[in-house]
C-alpha cells in the first residue's frame, strides 16, 4: 500500500520532467520534498525515463550534500559552520549539543534527532546560528547551548 503510493508519486514527478534535458537535480529536489529523502525505489523509474545509467544517477545523487538517501531524523539540528559562526564558537556549541543530545560516541544513528552541517548563507548577525527543523535560532552563545539542547530534547520527546 505504502510502497505503491511511493511509486505513484515518483512516477508523477518523473512524468512532469520526461523528455527534458538537464532536469535531474530538479527531479531529485522534488522527490526529496515529497518524501524527505530520495528513496532507492526512485532510481529505476528515473533511470528509465531519462535514459541515464543507474550508476551515473547514483553518482549524481550522492555527490551533492543536500540530497539524503535515508529518511531524515524527526528533529533535525542544522549547525552553520561558516567563518563567522566558527570564530564565535560554533564548534564548542556543536560539541555541547552533541553531548547533551546523546549524539557523541556510539549512539550516532538516531531517528529522533540528528545534527548536520549547514553552509553559510550570510545570516551572520545570528552567529553562532543553529537551525532546529529549519527554524533559525541565534545567536546561540556557548553559555546558551545547554538550554537549547534541553529545548530540542523536549521537542524530541513531544
Amino acid at each position, binding site marked *: 500500500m505504502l510502497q505503491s503510493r511511493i511509486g505513484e508519486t515518483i512516477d508523477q514527478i518523473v512524468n512532469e520532467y520526461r523528455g527534458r*534535458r*538537464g*532536469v*535531474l*537535480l*530538479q527531479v*531529485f*529536489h522534488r522527490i526529496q520534498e515529497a518524501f524527505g529523502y530520495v528513496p532507492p525505489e526512485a532510481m529505476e523509474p528515473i533511470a528509465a525515463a*531519462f535514459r*541515464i545509467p543507474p550508476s*551515473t544517477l547514483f*553518482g*549524481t545523487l550522492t*555527490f*551533492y*550534500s*543536500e*540530497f539524503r538517501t535515508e529518511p531524515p531524523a524527526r528533529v533535525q539540528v542544522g549547525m552553520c559552520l*561558516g*567563518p*563567522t559562526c*566558527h*570564530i564565535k564558537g560554533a564548534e*564548542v556549541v556543536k*560539541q*555541547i549539543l552533541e*553531548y*547533551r543530545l546523546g549524539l557523541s560516541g556510539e549512539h550516532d544513528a538516531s531517528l529522533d534527532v540528528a545534527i548536520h552541517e*549547514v*553552509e*553559510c*548563507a*550570510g*545570516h*551572520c*548577525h*545570528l552567529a553562532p546560528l543553529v537551525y532546529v527543523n529549519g527554524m*533559525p535560532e541565534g545567536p546561540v552563545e*556557548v*553559555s546558551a*547551548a*545547554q538550554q537549547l*539542547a534541553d529545548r530540542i530534547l523536549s521537542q524530541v520527546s513531544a
Partner: protein
Amino acid sequence: MQAYEALVAQAQAAARPSRTLIQVSMDSGAQHRGAQDTLAAIRTAVADRGIDAEVGIVGGNGMCWAEPLVRLTLPNQAPVVYGPVTAADAPQWLGDVLAGNLRPDLALGTEGETAIGDIVPFSQQPYFQVQRRNLLARMGKTDPENVDHYLATSGYAGLDKALDGLSPEDIVKLLLDGNLTGRGGANFPAGRKWDFLRTARGTEKYLICNADEGDPGAFVNRILLESDPFLVIEGMTIGGYVTGAPYGFIYIRDEYPLAVERVRKALDQARARGLLGKNILGTDFSYDMEVVRGAGAYVCGEETGLIASIQDYRGMPRIKPPFPAQAGVFMKPTNVNNVETYAYVPGILANGPEWFSSVGLGVNKGTKLFSLSGRINRLCIVEVDMGTPIRTLMETCGGGLDPAHTFKGIQQGGPLGGVIPADWIDTGLDPANFNSQGTIMGSGGLIFLDERDCIVDLCKWLTHFDSKESCGRCTTCRIGSMRMVDILDRMTKGIAVADDLAIMQHLELVMNNANCVHGQFTPKPFNAAYKWFKAEFEAHVFEHRCPSSACRDLVQYTIDPAKATGAVAAALVASCPVDAIVTAADSAVIVQDKCIRCGLCQAAVPDAVSVSPRTTFEAPVREVRYG
C-alpha cells in the same frame, strides 16, 4: 519603442502616490530576524483599525544589522525607513506614525533630500555617502516580486535601447569601452567573453548565470537575486540578444531558497509582459531561461563543474580547453558570467559606458559589492567604488570593531582566497592591489578578525572546507588537501613538528598540478597567512602555544582544590555542559579527557578556575626527517 513605453505607462499607472504605503523589507536576512511576523502584525493592525494604507514588501537595502526594516511613505512625504521594527513594536509604531509622531528614535533615515524633523536624509549620512549605489539603486525601494515596480524605476530601459537600434556588435563595443570585467573574481573582460560566444558557430548556444555563491561569508549575490531579480534577468536577456543564445540557465545555490523562488516568480512575470520568451517587446528577438537549483556543492561554482551539474552529472570540473565558449552545456557554446556582471549590463546600456568606466579609484573600474561579516559591528552589504580603502568600509559602513579588541586582519575571497593583516587597512579594494601581493580579492566577502581569532585555526577551517568540497577527480587536490588539513590540525593540537611548515610549502607545488582552480588555490589561504602571520604559526609549531588562546587543544583548565569545596564545587559541577567536572575528596576536579574547554566553569566561578598552557600532549613530539 512603443511596446516598452506602453509597459512603463501601465506600470506607473499602477502606483498610487496619494495613498499611505507601508513596506516591510523581505529578504532572507530580514526573514531570519522575524520580518514575516512584523509584516503580519502590521497587516493585522491596518485591518483592525480600518486604516487606508497599502501594505507590501520591498527588498532588503543592505543594512542587515537593522532588519527588519519598514519603509513608510506618507502622502506628500519622502519615504522614511525604520529599523529594527519587531512584531511587538509594530502596532505601537504604526499608531505613532499615523498620529503624526514620526518616531525619529526608530528611524534610520529618509530617502528624500531634506530632513523631516530629526530624521536625517540618507544622502547626508556617511554610511550612504561613501557608497555609490549603481547596482543597488532599487534595493529596499521596490517590490522584487512585482515587475511593475521594476519597470516604473527605469527597469528594462537597457533592453529597450538594445532592441531599438543597437546591433550586437555595438553592445560588445559598449561593454569593452566601459571595460566591464567579470565580477566573480577572475576579472576577464565581459565584452570579449560575449564576443567569443557571438562569433561561435551554430545556433544552439547557452548563457549561464553563476549564482552558486558558495564562498562562506560572501552573500552579495544573494541580495541582488532576492531584492532585484529583474536586473539580472534583464542583463541576461541582453546577453541573449548580443550572443545569439536563445536560452539561459541561472544556477542558484540551494542555500538561497528565497532567491530561487523570487527569480522564478520574476521569470513568470517577465514572460507575461512579453519581456521574455518569444518575440520580446514585439521584435523578432526571442530568448528564454530557467532556474537551476543547486544541491550543495561548492565546486559547482567553477564554471565547468557548474556545466556538468546542469547536465545531470556530478559537479566535477574538467580540464580546459575546450573552454565553455567552444563546448559548454550539452557540448554547445556557452557563456558563464557572475550575477554582478550580468546585473551591470542594463545600466551600461541605458547610461553609457562612462557611467561605469568613470568610477573607480584604482586600476579596475566600476563599483563592487562587498559583504561585511565576522567581528564587525554592523553586518551589511555595501556597494562602493572599486579601490575604496578598507578603512572606509570597516569604519564608516561596518561601524568598526568592538573597541575592547584590536583589529587583526581580514579573511577575504572565500576559502580559496587568503588572509590579509591589519596594516592593509588603507589599501584600496581593487583586485590589482591584491594580485600584486600574490593573493586575490575574490567575489566580495570580507570577514573581519580581531585578536581573539587564531589564524592557524582559521586556516585549518578554510582548508578543511576546501578538502571537504574537493570533487575528488585529481589526486593532488583530493589527497593534498587532506594532508594539509592533517598538518594544520596537528599545529592546532600542539603536536606538529618543525618539518610540517616545509611540507606545507611543498604541498603547494604539488597542488598546482590539480586540473582546476579549486585544487590549485587550496594552498592560498595558508600561503597568505604564513606570509603575514608567520610568528603565529611558529608559536604553534615550536612552542605549542596559541597566541590568541583560540586553539582549545593548547590550553587546559584547572580547578584550585582549596577554593572549590561545598557550594562552589556544586556550582562548578552544575556549570559543566559535558559533565567533565566531578567531586572528589570534597572538592571539584576536571576530568581532562572529557573537558572540551568551553570555559563555562571559569565564567561561573572565575576565582576557582584557571587556564594555563597545556603541557602534556596526545602524541610525543618527535622530529621527522623527510627527503
